[in-house]
């Protein structure tokens, strides 16, 4: 089996991710009666797919930012949160698989491409599903007695943790 065939699994997953992300945003915005941005989302989706074949590596991070920005705007406008979370999640998956497919291009035909693809897809799927479950739980499970100050404190604690995380990442 040649390199092109083996990469196809990642490419299919990438296409599905873009469809998931863009589709969720389209549905979310359409339900809220925002028709104009929907067209732009479709264009963004097509461009993202084209970027893969045209090897516009710079485009994927831009597309991710746009997808997250659109989801955040939707949340702010009080569109259905599920669609917005799915939109951002699709963007994250698309960005990851776009980059993974790019890295796989460096592999030689004799390398274990299929094994790498399988393991990567499994891990990404687990992480994304966990993230989705956690996000949905945080939306639907409400702790009524939690004061706003406590919430802010928790947020700051999370920010602190994230800062530590970023400092750790910079070592690499």
């Amino acid at each position: 089996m040649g390199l092109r065939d083996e990469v196809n699994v990642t490419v299919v997953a990438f296409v599905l991710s873009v469809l998931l992300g863009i589709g969720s945003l389209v549905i979310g915005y359409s339900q809220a009666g925002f028709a104009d941005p929907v067209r732009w989302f479709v264009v963004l989706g097509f461009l993202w797919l084209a970027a893969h074949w045209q090897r516009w590596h710079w485009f994927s991070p831009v597309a991710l930012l746009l997808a997250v920005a659109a989801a955040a705007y939707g949340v702010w406008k009080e569109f259905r949160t599920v669609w917005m979370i799915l939109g951002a999640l699709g963007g994250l998956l698309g960005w990851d698989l776009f980059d993974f497919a790019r890295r796989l291009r460096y592999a030689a035909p004799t390398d274990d491409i299929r094994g790498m693809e399988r393991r990567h897809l499994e891990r990404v799927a687990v992480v994304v599903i966990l993230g989705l479950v956690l996000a949905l739980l945080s939306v639907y499970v409400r702790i009524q007695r939690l004061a706003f100050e406590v919430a802010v404190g928790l947020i700051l604690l999370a920010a602190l943790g994230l800062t530590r995380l970023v400092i750790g990442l910079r070592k690499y």
Partner: protein
Amino acid sequence: MIVYSLILASIVAVRGEFIALALPFVMYLLAGFLRAPDDVKLEAARHLSTERAAPGSDVVVTVTVTNRGSHLEEVLLEDILPPDLTIRVGLSRHLVRFAKGASYTFSYTVSGPRGGYGFESVEATIKDRLAVTSRKVRLEAKGQLFVFPPVTRLRHVAIRPRRTRVYAGMIPARVGGAGTEFFGVREYQPGDPPHSINWRASARHEELLFSNEFQQERVADVGIVLDGRLRTNQFTRGHSLFEYSVLAAAALADALLTQGNRVGMLVYASFLRWTFPGYGRVQRERILYALAHAKPGGSEVFSDLEHMPTRLFPPESQIILVSPLHEDDLSPLVQLRAQGYQVMVVSPNPVQFELSYLPKTQTVELAGRVVRMERMLLLQKIQRAGIQVLDWDVNEPFDLLVKRKLSRPPAWLRAVGG
């Protein structure tokens, strides 16, 4: 940045949904960071199928990388190739997964033009399972490849330096003794073999006998000067005569060393590269190494032959200059001859060479005639100074030219005794 922005939006808008939006990203970052490789200990080793190759021939490079540290999920290995080498078969870049203690070996085939190539290291880019973190390390894996110039076998190169060394060789030494070439007649000495008596000369004298004397043949000191100046080698559209000069120098050095002579080599380009004189196969290797590294170059100091360090060459030895020649080279060559050196110039013909790349128009033809006459005049002046000149049209094989012109010394040189 995305996570920070979403948290900030959450605080500003007092909306928990933004945090929910950020959670998958946080999960992703955490999963990548927590499983990042902490202990990277990779080692690389390199093996070349040969360290000495001919131009364009295939050399198999085998690289083995061993993981002495923890498990690495995604490692991009890239062998850094010296410039000018091209990959003919296989790839120098591989994406692999390394279990603890595992090794990975890959091979590829390279070829390249004449030169000395040093392989230094293999670059490894290590990523975690989700490529959140990335680390680049260079693994030392040294190797050297020498692509030697092709050596044309020459049967005999006749030279006549004024001074020879004491060891027996093939160069006529201008001294009577045991040899093959007739040198003269002298009075018979007791102990002379009877077959050496010259009966014809002895018959003319009643009481005296005469013996034939032969010329001793010894080895000589030879200095080969390879002219690598840009002004003499570089022509329009990047064409260069230098490769032909290298080919001639290699063939001459090989032939002269085979004859038993002591040969040194000076590459005269942007700087001087001197290979000390020596004998035999080891010296042949040294000269080929020097020729593998030789590159044409320009410099203000060495733009003409005035600064040639003649003291490197033993007095009255043979100097062979391999150069396309420039009109300014006449005076230094005459000076060299005046210092007592026996000088020979092997000159790849630049006029013929450049004309072969130019369109055959009337103007080019006329210009070609003028330049050809100028060169002919220069060569005649050099010859008049007692310097042997081989004008080499590079379309002709070098060994044929040497066979025609150098299989024995020219008559005028034998007549004047060098």
